[in-house]
């Protein structure tokens, strides 16, 4: 079994990759980008996809395979991951797995990262080791598979994507030249940023235009200690029949009033809950109705169960469910049931992991 015939080109730079995309479109040919190919090649072998041009971006230095950079965005610590990072590289990333982090210079003492347990969870149960060695974070996001694991965790971590294209091609979101290179002539590459929530649209459908390339993915890394990912895998394909990612941040800090009286805000109640569900709907989604019940609440068993019961509701106070998918493996109702059970389990696991004083 092999794919339908196609022309192959390997891009060495982001510029070259964008040129190759433009060339293909000028000739009215369907082009696809390939990095790890762990989703695309199986589809091509089954002839579910038959691109005429395949552009290999696996070697692009600008997409930082395996690299990450810490930064502060909106008052929160975040990490920017190269789109070409493989699952295997991510699972060995100290920032994400709680391992030893070394700074670039000797002024930064090696320290153990807090880690994001939900990321460790998902990378252990996603596909299998051989697939994890090649599959990439950018690829899974671009693929838009309704039954993909990692996007649920990324959604719960408020992921934002950086997308490159020819400058001015998407002016409404154009953010300037990219990548920044001091002392070089101005780049003709533009970039835009979009939240993963806005990016995912439906079954294999995303906001990515034909002339664009995802370069980086930024996730929140602060206070993600109380997090977990739980899935019910299909035993043969390992795809989630349902999967739920949970990230809880607790109230923290102290308030001093005008009389000098100090109130400890860290009373054990939840400041913000993020719950993302995959495998049961046309796209992974944030369960806002369930989150609303937890925001500001104490995590009592009753509250947690009540929140889990809302996990397939379209919005707070609504009796409408999100659009549900069913197939020969599991009906829509069964998947919805799994989502509720998995939400309860993921919440319990996240809470057991602590993180109240972060």
């Amino acid at each position, binding site marked *: 079994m092999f794919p339908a015939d196609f022309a192959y080109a390997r891009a060495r730079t982001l510029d070259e990759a964008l040129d190759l995309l433009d060339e293909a479109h000028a000739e009215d040919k369907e082009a696809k980008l390939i990095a790890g190919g762990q989703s695309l090649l*199986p589809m091509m072998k089954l002839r579910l996809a038959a691109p005429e041009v395949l552009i290999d971006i696996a070697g692009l230095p600008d997409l930082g395979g395996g690299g990450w950079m810490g930064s502060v965005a909106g008052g929160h610590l975040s990490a920017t991951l190269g789109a070409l990072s493989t699952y295997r590289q991510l699972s060995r990333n100290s920032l994400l797995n709680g391992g030893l982090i070394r700074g670039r210079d000797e002024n930064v003492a090696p320290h153990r990262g807090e880690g994001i347990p939900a990321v460790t969870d998902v990378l252990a149960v996603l596909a299998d080791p051989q697939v994890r060695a090649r599959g990439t974070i950018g690829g899974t996001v671009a693929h838009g598979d309704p039954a993909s694991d990692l996007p649920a965790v990324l959604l719960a971590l408020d992921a934002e994507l950086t997308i490159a294209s020819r400058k001015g091609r998407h002016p409404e979101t154009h953010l300037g030249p990219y990548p920044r290179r001091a002392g070089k002539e101005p780049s003709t590459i533009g970039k835009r940023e979009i939240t993963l929530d806005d990016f995912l649209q439906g079954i294999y459908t995303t906001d990515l235009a034909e002339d664009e390339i995802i370069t980086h993915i930024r996730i929140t890394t602060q206070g993600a200690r109380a997090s977990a990912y739980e899935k019910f895998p299909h035993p043969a394909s390992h795809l989630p029949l349902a999967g739920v990612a949970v990230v809880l941040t607790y109230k923290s800090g102290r308030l001093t009033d005008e009389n000098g009286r100090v109130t400890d805000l860290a009373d054990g109640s939840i400041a913000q809950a993020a719950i993302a569900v995959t495998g049961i709907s046309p796209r992974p989604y944030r369960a806002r109705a369930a989150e609303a019940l937890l925001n500001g609440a104490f995590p009592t068993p009753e509250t947690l169960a009540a929140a889990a019961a809302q996990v397939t509701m379209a919005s707070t106070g609504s009796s409408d469910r999100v659009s549900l998918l069913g197939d020969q493996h599991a009906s829509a109702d069964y998947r919805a049931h799994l989502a509720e059970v998995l939400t309860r389990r993921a919440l319990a696991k996240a809470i057991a992991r602590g993180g109240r004083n972060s």
Partner: protein
Amino acid sequence: MPAAREVPVQLTVNGAPRAATVPARTLLVHFLRDHLGLTGTHVGCDTTQCGACTVALDGVAVKSCTVLAAQADGHEVTTIEGLASQADGSLHPVQQAFQDEHGLQCGYCTPGMVMAIRQLIEDHPDPTEEQVRHALDGNICRCTGYQNIVAAALRAASATALRAPASPTAAALRAAASPTAAEREG
């Protein structure tokens, strides 16, 4: 480079440089079997599930039915044929453990199992039984019930540990990490 339906590929296979021009859609497993005659790498399910086609690409186990030969251009591939000692033909510890524990029946999945377990032991020099079973998630055996395969993996891990400490990289990392951990905890 412009897009082409025929692409030149140059890669190192089991230590030897190999080059050919192949249709772009040629999968690595077919390149190994049909162009290089290395038929130890098997095609099982052909849908990225069974792991019979597992090889090491730049030292990491991957499923060669889901890699294009063109993607492997410029890289290093090790197949089951490249595991035994080239000097004296002695078996790799994982191969030897499969023989000792009789970790096979029909043998179809064996090359992939051996390649996957080689990776497991490199990543986890002293795996638990649970880790072994988890690491074989991507390899399917339809005869053995896995029992002897797991036994072979555990035996190979202890044999590897007896022979030499874990790979230099892993050992170096641990050596570098431990004083700091001690400082922090102490």
